[in-house]
């Protein structure tokens, strides 16, 4: 019997670096050229199957990147097992912002959190402002995972999530967040076709 794990993942990064697009690519394998800015936080799930048939279910919180909502971010990365901090390779300012997020996570998030630094928009390499070397060096210094991705082309997207899944402690079933438990409970209460047969009116003089 294959093992199943569930982890909470949070996406952080400057506004417009492509957090929602990355999730959309990962969860639905889709891409919209014009996405509205996220004002809020979206909850999505996607399951990754590893080579040994272990499945890892990510509960993903995609958060708003705008500075205005920065104070709410801790509510969403609280209890997160992993974080993807995104920057835009065509804007060095976004890497600076990513550094701030990483410092904040190292200071305030769960100490065992797995952090991946992702340079998104690799399809726009012609306008690159952040070199691979620069970002990679920083990631190594801080002990972070690192990759470049393109939500538009899909390049590197599933790879980074799979890499995170492999890096997570798959020894014991993780304590899934309460939100996950509630959602799981919700699902169990959904369609239950099995109940059908017992829901017969007792009065009916029939044997169906």
């Amino acid at each position, binding site marked *: 019997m294959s093992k199943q794990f569930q982890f909470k993942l949070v996406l952080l990064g400057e506004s417009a670096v492509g957090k929602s697009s990355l999730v959309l690519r990962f969860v639905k394998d889709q891409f919209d050229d014009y996405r509205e800015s996220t004002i*809020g936080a979206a909850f999505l799930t996607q399951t990754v199957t590893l080579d040994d048939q272990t499945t890892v279910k990510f509960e993903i919180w995609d958060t708003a990147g705008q500075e205005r909502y920065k*104070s709410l971010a801790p509510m969403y990365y609280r209890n997160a097992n992993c974080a993807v901090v995104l920057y835009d390779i065509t804007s060095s300012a976004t890497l600076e912002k990513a550094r701030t997020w990483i410092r904040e996570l190292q200071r305030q998030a769960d100490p065992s959190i797995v952090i991946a630094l992702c340079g998104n928009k690799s399809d726009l390499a012609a306008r690159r402002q952040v070199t691979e070397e620069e970002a990679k060096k920083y990631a190594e210094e801080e002990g972070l995972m690192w990759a470049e991705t393109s939500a538009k082309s899909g390049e590197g997207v599933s790879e980074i999530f799979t890499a995170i899944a492999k890096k997570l402690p798959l020894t014991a079933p993780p304590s899934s967040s309460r939100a996950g438990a509630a959602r799981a*409970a919700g699902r169990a209460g959904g*369609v*239950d*076709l099995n109940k*059908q047969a017992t829901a017969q009116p007792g009065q009916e003089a*029939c044997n*169906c």
Partner: protein
Amino acid sequence: MSALESSIRALLRPSDQVKVVLEALVVPPPNNAGTPDPSPRSPNRSQIDDTRSKRILAVVAHSDGPNMQEEGSVFILKWKAAGRAFDQSDILRVFPVFGGFSITMAQVRRETWPMAESSPGLLSLTITQGDIQDLEPLTLATQHVQTLRDVLAECKRLKEIADAPPVSAPPLTTFSWLAPYTSKRVPLPALFGVPQDLRVAQKPLHTRLSAAFAGEAGDDFTDIVRIRDEWIRSRVRETSSKGKQHLRMRIGTFNVNGNLPSQDLSPWVGGNGNSNTTDPFIPPLKEFSPFSIAEVAKNPFDTPAPAPISDESEPKPEAAPAPSRVVLGEKKPVNVDAHPGLDLLVLGFQELDLSTEALIYSTSTLKEEAWCTAAFAALGARAELYEKLASKQLVGMLIVVIVRKALKPCFSEIKTSAAGTGIMGLMGNKGGTAIRMKFTPPATDAVKNPGPTVLTFVNAHLAAFDEMVEKRNADFHDLAKRLRFDLGPSLPEGATAPVPVTCNVFESDALFWMVSDLNYRIDAPDADVRTILAAEEWAESRYETLLQYDQLKSAIRTNKAFDMFSEGPIVHLPTYRFNAGLLKDDLGYDLKRRPAWTDRVLFTSNVFAPIQQLSYTGHPQITQSDHRPVSAEFTIEVDLYDQPAAEAAADKLYRQLNGLEDAHEDTNARINLKIMNAAVDLGKVSYKQTVIQQVGIRNIGKVPCAYRLVPVDPESSVHPDWLKVEPMTTLLLPDELAYITLTAYVDNDSASRLNIDHKALECTLILHTVMGKDHFIAVTAEYVPTCFANTLSRLTLLPGPIRSLKSQSELLAVDRAINAPREIMRLVNWMMGPELHLDSVFVSPADETKVATIRECLDTGADFPFSPDPKDDQAPVAFGETLFRLLDSLPEPLIPVELHLRCSEAANRYEAFELLDALPPTAVNVWISVTAFLHFVCQSSADPDAKTQKIAGLFAPVLLRDTSNLASPVGRRNFLLHFIS
């Protein structure tokens, strides 16, 4: 399409299609050896016509959009004649077509089913779905061979699709579309049979949802069901309401102290023979107390009791009454249409029998008969129009319902209950009796089957003695638990034997609680109570003052008991304890017992049965007991709706909404709200000025969607205290546009905080889409500071007008503080101006525009645009009002609370002045200026003594404000009088 097919079509959701419909009969499964079933239930000739064995089989296919794979199911429904509507409860079984599904056809063997003998050509079909545990195979028989072939062909087609899904389709076959047909839901009787518990119905929906905050969605599944049911409940009644009918009732409560009737009860029961009963605003008889004549002459229910100094005119959002509560004082025309006069008379008696034997449960009805006879006699000539509908007695407690004969057929399912809470928690010397009944308005052409309204009446007698207030509160909760009505046996779906159904007193549309002889007392010193009741100078505020100390009011205020109940304003003298002998005061109250309002009528109801109180009064002319009887008149606005139509509407809404529970996760894209303006700037927000803006929300998803606002973390509130958000939760149908109303209103409490350092107000509202994402709504506003609601010491540190203060650092050093707040001094100085006409000050109501202008001038430092003019008495009134409100807005009263006790004990003017030494210097300066001014106002009045009393009554509760009511109200008033008289 056949009529039968159309009926099934109507049952299905738009995405589901009925493919084939077949009428069939149930074939019992063969028993062990396949021999005929010998039991008497064995089918016989007549079974072929027995509708109970008839079934309808429908093959239903579901397809949602071009990319979705078609899925099929076989539905087994109860048989209904063509043209009759189906509802969800008619669906007996559902066999999803996938995996282990199979359907086979065979000739019916005679030996397994005798009926086949008489009906040759019968074919049987057996349906199995092995993948679903507990779903037993089903065998049906039918003569419709061609239709049966169609069924088999369609099932084969659907099975093939299920077995080989097209590559483009999502891999998962969830069959979630079956949820609306199979999932449990609130059965319709719960919507219409037993009303929702009033304790639940009165709590706003958002407070009943699971705990949730940012990043923690809570229990969305339970929440969505609650939001949905509430939405359906209100939507159904809204849309099916065909008007209102008014029911007029009088409730009387009387602790008779063991006596038998010996006096005319007509004032109490509202009899009075030929008196004009169509005007509910005339109290039955005048009270005898010379001091209360003023109150009796003008009925308090006619006009709002004029508060001497009214509050700001802006609506206070927090003061908005719950929709079900009556707005007292607002006289609406009372519709007594076809039934002039009283429809119901409900009388509660206590201490009917004080004998020792009566302590054990007694069944004697002698006393009941005597009191009922007296009540009917008191109705005079109109008595013949009424008859007794029900009664319930438990030892000394009796409740009687008398009904207008013409309306008697409208009352049904009359149930009674009783519970003792006396000695050992069981004896009947204390406790309650209750009557519950259904009122069904007469049928009309528009409403052929009117839905009922449930009315419940409780008559309770709780523990005595002042110090037992906790015990009395506990008794209330105990009674609430133990007073249950037996609604008779019922056979719920799935149960094998009938189970008794009971309900509590709160499961009603309207509940009246005669808390007669609750023995809730007045928590003020005995001498104070008697002084305030008797002394003329207290006449204006006597009830208001004493009711602050009332234990029952306090229990309601602090949610200890009766917290969901309303009570009309009390403007009658306390009803207990009177003494016929020598040991009584001038009003007739027993000298050994502090007078109290021990006989009360409380009420509560849901939005479908709003109650309006018409009168509330004691009857001092009925003197035979140590209590005086109390009566209260009400009208209940009963909703007229057609029950079958409402049930059909509810069923339709359920079908529209079902599937909500299942729409999550992979349907993320389907649940989608769009916030039209996620950033809201409310602009300038000033003290006690309402600013309103709306946020549009549109459901751009394909499924109904509910939202709720959640706080950022468990310790926070959803919104700051200066902002109100409405509605906190609701449900939107696809494409529906709804609005959230944001109301900014800065009251004293918020202002006292915001004045210190909050020019920029901002907050982020978190709108959680149930089963979906969180949206943020950023709200910003600019706070305009005011001199109101600042501490005295802060006002003296202001270098200039408060609006010109740029930052806290500009405040003066403490040693350079000014002597007294310049705002207070400006007001007093203006009013002390030459030859001003001050007679109307603190008497006439002020012009709100002028008050606002004056406050603005105090805040900005601008000159008052009113020059002192002896002919203008309106401007001084506005200045006086502003001064009063400014003093009332101080976070701490001018005289610190810890000095109140000593102040109230000051025996003379000398002692009173001595006490000023204990005050902070600023407070002394303000006190001297204000009291000197008040003294001046009193002395320049035509009747200085009367004016002094009036002003003392007005200002003592403000200058010596004390919400905990520790010091004597009489003493506090006297303290002020030492300075102004």
